[in-house]
């Protein structure tokens, strides 16, 4: 197992956080993990992304230009990363903020109205966790319960935040799982 993934959106949407959650969960699953944020001038423009590599062997390059999957939370991010995902890879698209279709036909596209779902659950701020859930549901890469455990540790003492994120992750996973058969069929 070796998977290179990119999470991207506006600064403040929490893409670095879901990258860390995924890396932590991967570590707890016994995988080798690396989390690498973009820190260069590109992030000064308001967009933000990070790369997470999960592997059953020592991680080589911590950056990738051919990710196995991507979670894109805004329009700039889908424009930048849709062309890079490897054929057959998963592209989670936040349809609350991205109002265009995906051009590629060789990807498993998982459309999720992440902001809307998170808002309905209590706060649009948790849209990032909905999107992460959708990715986990579709990919089966890491047990979502591990992410929930990490959330509980990260937000220990703040039960409302833990509960909100729990609900958001689960709703994302449920949506993502409906796309898992498409992945299995490949």
């Amino acid at each position, binding site marked *: 197992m070796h998977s290179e993934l990119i999470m991207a959106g506006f600064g403040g949407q929490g893409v670095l956080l879901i990258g860390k959650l995924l*890396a932590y969960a991967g*570590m707890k699953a016994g995988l*080798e993990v*690396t989390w690498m944020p973009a820190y260069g*001038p590109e992030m000064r423009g308001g967009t933000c992304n990070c790369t997470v590599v999960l592997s059953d062997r*020592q*991680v*080589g*390059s911590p950056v990738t230009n051919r990710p196995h999957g991507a979670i894109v939370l805004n329009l700039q991010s889908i424009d930048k990363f849709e062309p890079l995902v490897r054929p057959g890879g998963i592209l989670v698209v936040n349809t609350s903020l991205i109002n265009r279709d995906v051009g590629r036909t060789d990807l498993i596209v998982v459309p999720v109205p992440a902001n809307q779902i998170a808002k309905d659950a209590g706060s649009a701020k948790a849209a990032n966790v909905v999107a992460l859930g959708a990715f986990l549901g579709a990919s089966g890469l890491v047990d979502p319960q591990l992410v929930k455990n990490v959330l509980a540790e990260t937000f220990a003492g703040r039960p409302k935040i833990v509960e909100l994120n729990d609900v958001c992750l689960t709703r994302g996973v449920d949506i993502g799982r409906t796309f898992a058969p498409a992945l299995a069929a490949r």
Partner: protein
Amino acid sequence: MAKKLMKGCEAIGEAAVQAGCRLFFGYPITPQNEIPEYMSARLPQLGGVFVQAESEVAASNMLYGAAGAGCRCFTSSSSPGISLMAEAMSYLAGSELPVVIVNIMRAGPGLGGILPSQSDYFQATKGAGHGDYRVLVLAPSTVQEAADLMMEAFDLADKYRNPVMVVGDGLIGQMMEPVEFKRHIDPEDLPEKPWATTGAVGRAPNVVNSLYLRAEDLEQHNWHLQRKYAAMQAEVRHETYLADEDLDVLIVAYGTVARISRTSIDALREKGLKVGLFRPITLFPYPSEALWATAQRAKHVLVAELSTGQMVEDVRAVIALRRRVDFFGRCGGMVMTAEELADAAEQLAAVPASVPA
């Protein structure tokens, strides 16, 4: 201790704490700001001292004072800041003071940019400041290794009474990986430094200085330093990956580029090409003998760096008369992809070996 996910910069800071260091002097610069940030929070908890100096020049001379008083101390900076510390490094080496200096390299020259680079190899290994001096240089390629080498750097600095540099690049500093701290050293348990200027109560005063006005004395001092640098050969170390056989191409790379090379090598192996990696961990002293032992079984040698070609000169010094040495580099903050490095190695593998007569 359980593994924690930490940024390279934070792991370096915590490793210093675990090594018993309680003093940090520095000045902010991207991409290593997480080190002073971490130390500013951590050291006061432990009764230590964090000083944000007025400049890198000041910070590095504060290091001189603290080390002269026998304290474990370190500073960190990034390329332009290290240039400002070059004068102090010469004085530290001349006065034989044990300090650790971290350089999270960014692209130059001049103010350059903030993105990853390995273009301070010459500065680190050949001497940034004036005079015949060297510092021991360690180059980690993972966050765990950054923590391990950072802890060891303090011991090596004490052992040789010499500055030790730990060099990473923006990727090593910014990435998060699982890390555990394998040792814990209490500052109280550190060995005595009988040469340090600790107050001279009941003993003759110690002098820490690099001034030798009599040429005869200064020459002797220089030969003494050179014997010490020669003795550092005992610390030389390296790692190889899939290089214990006859190879089409041997890639020589350190730090981040060594990791990228591993990904390239995995892809090339799937294509049936025999490609391996030689990764120096000490950049000074350089693992020359081990390099030739590995390189002589390779048809081609390809040095890859995030620079226009610096370490390649040391590789050529070792094997140029016996093998042609090719180079692949990106610079300015551009990081080579595993694909483009693999392409460079694959093209090289396709041409006949040119072994100089």
